């Protein structure tokens, strides 16, 4: 395998049972026929494009959405076989699929495992059924417990659970209850993504917010939720390795870490983004066009300048609590991060937002800096 460069693959499954009230991702409900033709188009796209990546070995596969679990397990298995057929897939590759409670059965999960998926990401969001209803989830906490149990039974060990803070009507106490329920499971998940809600344009929640119908936790509560997340999870052996991601040792999501350390990745399916050889490009979001010609519709392509590469190295790298590796920066750009960003670094160290790790090898956000990461990161833009 030596000599081959690492590549991550992302597959976008845009279908959902119904769209959640906070969601601005490219997703919609679709009938069985549309789903089947979409999967066919996806296979075709993989076959048509794989030839561009013969110098690469695939280190991770991530099937996201949408809700990938609304597609038949047979098609999911076929997707992985197509990948194996067309790419060099490493033995130890991380292969993740996102699922939502209410769309899977024990059998389906067993099929996933059999097909080669070794990591599961379950969208829970909250353990409070009232909160789930508010944000338009189709499932209850009970259904999550079923799904989680089946996942373990099916043989998944590497499981992520998504939860959300700052939800409408959520109190600090109810949020902490969600967290505690999760870590008190007989076998708690090895990975937890804890996002604070962001109201996005064009979502149901934003409309409600603009009509004044939404009671959201204030900033104090929001920050308390964030602090509690860190405190409680760290007490239970989880490590915060990214702004919103926590894992037991060895279970950080390699795929996502790849995004933040700028590993090359190729996205398949509508709207899917790619980064290959310092070029960012993206598939068009139009479904009909995609079904007709899955490889021929690119929406935008941007060759990153050296400056943009540096900017990305900083603002993506700083998302990781481990921060930016100074030596890696120097190897890549033939200059030190201090020569490029000295003033910004000093100012933010002075303000208590950035720090060097004790060994001096990495530059990372402080606890305070994590909460103000945009403020810091914007300063790394030229």
């Amino acid at each position: 395998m030596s000599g081959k460069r690492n590549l991550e693959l992302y597959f976008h499954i845009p279908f959902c049972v119904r769209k959640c009230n906070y969601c601005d991702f490219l997703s919609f409900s679709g009938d069985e026929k549309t789903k089947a033709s979409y999967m066919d188009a996806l296979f075709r796209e993989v076959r048509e494009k794989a030839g561009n990546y013969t110098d690469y070995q695939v280190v991770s596969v991530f099937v996201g959405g949408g809700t990938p679990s609304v597609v038949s397990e047979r098609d999911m298995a076929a997707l992985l076989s197509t990948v194996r057929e067309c790419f060099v897939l490493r033995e130890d590759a991380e292969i993740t699929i996102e699922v939502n409670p209410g769309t899977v059965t024990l059998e389906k999960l067993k099929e996933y495992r059999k097909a080669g998926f070794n990591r599961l990401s379950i969208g829970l969001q909250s353990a409070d059924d009232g909160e789930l209803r508010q944000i338009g989830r189709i499932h209850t906490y009970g259904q999550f417990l079923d799904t989680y149990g089946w996942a373990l039974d099916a043989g998944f060990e590497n499981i992520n659970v998504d939860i959300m803070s700052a939800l409408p009507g959520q109190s600090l106490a109810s949020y902490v209850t969600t967290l505690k329920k999760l870590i008190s499971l007989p076998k708690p998940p090895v990975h937890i993504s804890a996002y604070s809600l962001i109201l996005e344009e064009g979502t149901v929640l934003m409309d409600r917010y603009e009509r004044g119908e939404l009671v959201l936790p204030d900033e104090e509560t929001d920050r308390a939720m964030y602090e509690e997340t860190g405190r409680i999870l760290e007490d239970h052996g989880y490590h915060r390795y990214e702004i919103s991601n926590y894992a037991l040792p060895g279970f950080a999501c390699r795929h996502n870490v790849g995004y933040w350390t700028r590993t090359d990745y190729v996205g398949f399916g509508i709207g899917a983004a790619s980064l290959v050889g310092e070029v960012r490009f993206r598939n068009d979001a139009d479904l009909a066009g995609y079904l007709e010609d899955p490889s021929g519709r690119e929406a935008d392509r941007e060759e990153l300048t050296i400056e943009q590469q540096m900017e990305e190295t900083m603002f993506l790298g700083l998302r990781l609590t481990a921060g930016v590796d100074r030596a890696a920066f120097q190897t890549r750009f033939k200059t030190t991060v201090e020569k490029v960003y000295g003033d910004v670094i000093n100012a933010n160290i002075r303000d208590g937002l950035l720090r060097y790790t004790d060994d001096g090898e990495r530059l990372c956000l402080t606890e305070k800096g994590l909460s103000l990461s945009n403020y810091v990161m914007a300063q790394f833009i030229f």
Partner: protein
Amino acid sequence: MAMIDQSKIRNFSIVAHIDHGKSTLADRIIEKTGLLTSREMQNQVLDNMDLERERGITIKAQAVRTVYRAKDGEEYIFNLIDTPGHVDFNYEVSRSLAACDGAVLVVDAAQGIEAQTLANVYLALDHDLDVVPVINKIDLPSADPQRVIEEIEDVIGIEAADAPLISAKNGIGIEDVLEQIVAKIPAPKGDPQAPLKALIFDSLYDSYKGVIVFCRIMEGTVRKGTRIRMMATGAEENVVEVGYFGAGQFIPCEELSAGMVGYITASIKNVKDTAVGDTVTEAENPCAEPLPGYKKVLSMVYCGMYPADGAKYPDLRDALEKLQLNDASLNYEPETSLALGFGFRCGFLGLLHLEVIQERLEREYNLDLVTTAPGVVYKVYKTNGEVIELTNPSNLPDPSEIEHMEEPIVNAEIMVTSEFIGSIMELCQERRGRYLGMEYIEGTRALLKYELPLNEIIYDFFDALKSRSRGYASFDYDIKGYEPSKLVKLDILINREEVDALSFIVHADSAYERGRRMCEKLKDEIPRHLFEIPIQAAVGGKVIARETVKAMRKDVLAKCYGGDITRKRKLLEKQKEGKKRMRQVGNVEIPQKAFMSVLKLDDK
């Protein structure tokens, strides 16, 4: 070229309250006199600046010459001199009228006489013009021409029984107007052989021709080669070209003689040399006396204008220079602000004039501006006997050096229907108005007369007037003079540092209220920083109001996937760009729009 028979010339203006249909009537007259075919007619031929068309007002006086074949079979030359319709440009109106022998008064058949109707008619009568009333918009359902005719006769005291009843918009009754212009407006007089005496009523800078002087020849004759002198400014030049005004174009001719209206070019570089109201005479054979009534136009309202991007300072200077070529009433001089850097203190005739210039700078010269609160010119009498004309609040001397201060006062006339008299009087009281009297125009309408400090009306008085009268009140004013007043400088401190660009002069009694509102407004405009920021209003070092911008605790994008990275970068770029556009005062960054938003401290 055949001599033009003076008796066949009619020089006139159209005067009206805003929106009563002046420009539309002008269009119809031009149309009916056949100078242009209907096809060539743009909607409003006289208003050739884009801005004017959008705002629906006429900014610069202009003129047009048309030829009318009257019912008596004779051809008459009409020189229609357009006048600006806004109070800021009163002086220009007055000079335009001085170039005429008569005026057509347009009154809206539904609204009747309004404040500017009166102001304009009085101006016309002051110039001994014969006024021909015309009732417009008779096709409106609410039109009541008979009532309006009576109003004109009762209030203005001019004969209106045979006033043409017209609809300029629909072209009804225009012939009537044309015939009355022939019959009722006197032909010009003046001796073409006498020494040259011409009134400048406007001028325009053209990059090819230099300054184009718009004038009415009162006496004598001017032709190419004549050496002319501007009597007030003393500038002398040789005439390069004379001509008259086609619609939207200059048509050269041999000569302009007494009674005619036209233009002169003489390679003059600056409109400052051709002040409106000045008299043009022949250098070799000057007339004995200049025409009466010339005055230097004084800027009444000042504000600081700064380029949003400091590097654009030279561009702003060039743009102001160019605008001034065309607008002698615009004043500017360089100034520096600690908060805003290099900019200019600019003087204007009034707030509308300010807005027009600001818009032209932004639109025609593509400049992003930061404007400070407009203020008036205060007179500061110092204890050492010195008198300062203060245009920038930052230059106010130490209170210990001030003997007293004076502010400009205007005479205001407000026309309002009786149901709103109470609320308008209340408004005038709040604005420190001094009640002078009230006249009933007819049963339901009254003319309120007040003295008001100019600095109380330059902000939002007009808006307040409209909102408190449901749009019915109309307003006109002229400057009365200066009076002593209890004025103080209100300073704004952000994070305990005074921000010079936010200081302004205010009457002592309103200082607290204004200070409090400024602080509230700024609190909303200043973004959170890493630390808490106090915002204080102070008078003479004493804090009278305070707000606090809390420290920023959260600025984070919780989620970031592979597909989000381009978007994330755009977001950060925007954030960075926003930061660039902020002004650093001490260690606080203030967005540019904060400097402007405090101009609009909403009326409760």
